[in-house]
């Protein structure tokens, strides 16, 4: 998967977790939590949705990498590079 694909996947996950948020103007460089109502339960759900979709285990110490869209994409890119789009 490319960066663009991963970004799209994360957006879809955020839409599932927080359907009442408008994500059209999401700033990739700013923390999610500054831009939307996302508590720790929601945040854990991002990790769990990724595990469900791609069988990827994200250890707790890596969670800070997932605070922004840019950080999440950068963190996932090498881990999902062999995953086919739509898989």
């Amino acid at each position, binding site marked *: 998967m490319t960066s663009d694909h991963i970004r799209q996947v994360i957006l879809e996950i955020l839409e*599932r977790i*927080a*359907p*009442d948020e408008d994500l059209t103007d999401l700033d990739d460089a700013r923390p999610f939590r500054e831009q*939307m*109502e996302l508590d720790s*339960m929601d945040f854990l759900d991002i990790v769990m949705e990724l*595990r*469900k979709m791609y069988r990827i285990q994200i250890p707790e110490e890596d969670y800070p990498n997932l605070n922004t869209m840019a950080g999440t994409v950068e963190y996932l890119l090498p881990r999902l590079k062999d995953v086919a789009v739509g898989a």
Partner: protein
Amino acid sequence: MRYDTVIIGAGMSGLSAGVRLAYFEKSVCILERHTTIGGLNSFYRLRKRNYDVGLHAVTNYAEPGTKQGPLSKLLRQLRMKWEDFDLRPQLRSSIVFPDCKLHFTNQFNFFVEQIAAAFPHQIDGFRRLVTRIAEHDALDLERSALSARQVVSEYIRDPLLVDMIFCPLMFYGSATPRDMDFNQFVIMFKSIFHEGFGRPFDGIRLILKRLVRHFKSLGGHLKLRAGVQEIRQTNGKATSVLLDDGTEIEADNILSSAGAAETMRLVDPHAPLMKAQPGDISFVESISVLDCEPASLGHSDTIVFYSDSKDFHYERPNVPVDLRSGIVCSPNNFDYSQPLEDGRIRITALADPHYWLNLPEEEYLAAKEYWNAQIINSAMKHLPDFRPHVVDTDVFTPRTIRRFTGHLNGCVYGAPEKFVNGQTSVRNLYLCGTDQGFLGIVGAMLSGITIANRYLLK
């Protein structure tokens, strides 16, 4: 048969936990002894009419699209939509004590203004109490108990106002007599006064049926008429459940919404491993079906909490029914787009479970009829005389509650002592629901979600 998790009880908490687990691909089976779902918040049909068992109102109301608060949190967690709950807001509710009446709606400021007008000397203290409540993290699972009466009395000096604030909160969620744990007080205060009441047009069955459909669509199993007679363990770790019909179902984890004492009895009926006392706060409820809308008789309050004595007595009465106080609920008086099929008045009062549970069968029906008339009679101070319009009546008692929920004393709000972190003395056996400690419909659902997240999704 083997599952990742077996859940005992298909009520709000068990179903919500089940949805979380099934969504994240755990194999999960919900076992329900009764012939239908819902537990304490179920529904039934009697003489061609639909009834809700416990529901007066869903607390924690929020407008669709709200991003914060418990209701929004639980919809997100369950991946369900606002439409799935179809909550319509209340019109207005009241707290009525001798010589004093306070109204409240789902707009908290209106309640503050009511208190400022009726208790001008207490309003500053009340505002400080509201700040204290706002700063309190009631979802902290590692909390210690604190007397709510003691905390509130630091802010409010007038005992009448103290009792008027406690009255709805205790009636709608206190397992302990006379006082509440401050944490519980905060949860109830926010859910009733800050957020307020709502109800689906179709009643509780709508929410339950959508939860079940969602759960099954995610691959979860639900077995009705599947009572658990024993929770089996090996070396202090729960391993399986034995059903009434002799079937054994193995599971890595067992999550029970049956109540703390009730669950530990399933582990070992003779030597309970954990001190867990069932509660004894219970109610009798009179349900009248009317041939007209209550509003057409001049009653448009959604819920009236009343006490005819200046001191509010929230405890097990030493008479069959405590007629000094009660709750009048009209499910018609919510902001629907069309009227309900018929008019309803539900009047609920504290009852002595021992009386109702020990009554000989041949006296039970007559006692229900007698006390139904007494309850209605005592509530007449607070609503127009609807008796000529009654076309059908149903009454539930602690005996009814015990039959349908298995709660030992027919107690509605479970054990006085809560097991907030959901753990028991048996490994891999967890509690959710009433005895875990988040109450109300939204609370019960959050209870299932919270315990599932914490222990069962690893």
